[in-house]
C-alpha cells in the first residue's frame, strides 16, 4: 500500500514535467529552426525611403515567467553588412505575451542589444515576432549584394 502511493505520486510528477515537452520549469524556442529572416523586398535606391522590412515568428514554449534579452556572437553582428558596406538596421520585438506588447516602434540596432523583454505569464506557446528594417544610406549608393546580420534572443528564467 505504501509503495503504491509513492508510485502514484511519482507518476503525477512525471506527467507535470512532460506537459508541453518542457524541462521542469523553463522555456524553449520552437518552430522551424534554424531561424532565418530574409527581407523580401530588395533595396533599389538610396535614402530612407528605400527602407525594407521583414519579420519572423518565433514561438516560445514556457511554463514559467521569463525574460528575453538580445545579444550578438561578435560585435557588429547586429548590423546588416556586406563586404564592409552596411545598411541602416533597426529591429522590433513584438508579441502579446511580451509586457506592453513589446516595441511599438523601430529600435536602432545598437539600442536593440540593450533591450530586456519581460514575458510575465506562463501558458501555451507564445508568438514572439522579430522584425528587421533595412534602410539604404544617404549620400551614396550601397554596394549591390546580399547583406547579412545575426542576433541571439535568449529566454532566461
Amino acid at each position, binding site marked *: 500500500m505504501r509503495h503504491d502511493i509513492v508510485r502514484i505520486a511519482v507518476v503525477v510528477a512525471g506527467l507535470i514535467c512532460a506537459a508541453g515537452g518542457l524541462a521542469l520549469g523553463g522555456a524553449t524556442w520552437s518552430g522551424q529552426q534554424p531561424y*532565418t529572416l530574409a527581407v523580401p523586398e530588395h533595396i533599389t535606391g538610396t535614402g530612407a525611403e528605400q527602407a525594407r522590412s521583414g519579420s519572423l515568428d518565433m514561438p516560445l514554449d514556457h511554463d514559467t515567467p521569463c525574460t528575453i534579452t538580445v545579444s550578438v556572437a561578435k560585435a557588429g553582428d547586429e548590423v546588416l553588412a556586406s563586404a564592409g558596406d552596411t545598411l541602416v538596421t533597426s529591429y522590433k520585438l513584438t508579441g502579446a505575451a511580451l509586457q506592453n506588447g513589446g516595441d511599438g516602434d523601430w529600435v536602432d540596432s545598437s539600442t536593440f542589444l540593450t533591450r530586456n523583454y519581460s514575458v510575465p505569464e506562463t501558458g501555451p506557446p507564445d508568438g514572439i515576432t522579430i522584425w528587421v528594417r533595412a534602410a539604404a544610406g544617404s549620400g551614396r549608393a550601397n554596394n549591390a549584394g546580399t547583406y547579412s546580420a545575426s542576433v541571439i534572443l535568449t529566454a532566461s528564467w
Partner: protein
Amino acid sequence: MVLTAVAVVLMLAPTASAGSAPASVTITAAVDSFAEWAVAAPSITAGDWFADEIPVASFSAVNQTLTASLAMTLYANVAATLTPSSTGTGILTYGTETLSTSYMITGNVTVPDSDYELAGTGSGQFFASANTYTVTYAPGGGSYTINLLVQAVSPADRAPDAGDYICNVTLTASW
C-alpha cells in the same frame, strides 16, 4: 511518511531552477544594382552664367560667349552609361530666335570632353547616338560627380531678340 513523499514530489514542478534558452536569428537583405540622380530635375538659370569668368545675368553684346556649369551627383553601385538627349533640340531658343548652344561633360566619366560639342544629332555633336559617357564606377564608391557645361554664343552680325532663352537636356543613366 508516505504523505510527506507525495508533497515533496508535487512541489518540484513550480520550483523551477534558473536557466536560459538561446535562439540565433540570421537575417539577410538584398541591394540591387541601380543608378539614380541625386536631383532628378536640376536647372541652370540666369544667375548661373559667366562671361570670361565674370558672372553675368544676360547677353549684352553680339558675338558674346556665356558659359554655365551644373554639377550633378549620380548615385550608382554599378557601371553606368550616360546618354544625352533632349525633348526638343537642346538649343537655347526664344520664339524663333536661337543662340548657338554647345555642351560638354566632365567629372567622373572615363573619357571627359575636352571641348564643347554643338547641340545636334550629327556626327561629333552632343546628341549624336554614338556620344555616350561611361561613369568611372569603383566598388564601394557609390557617388559620382557629373558636370554638364553649356556654352551659348550670341550672333556675330545682329542682336538677338531680348527675352528668356530656354532648352532642356536629359542625361539618362543606364546599366
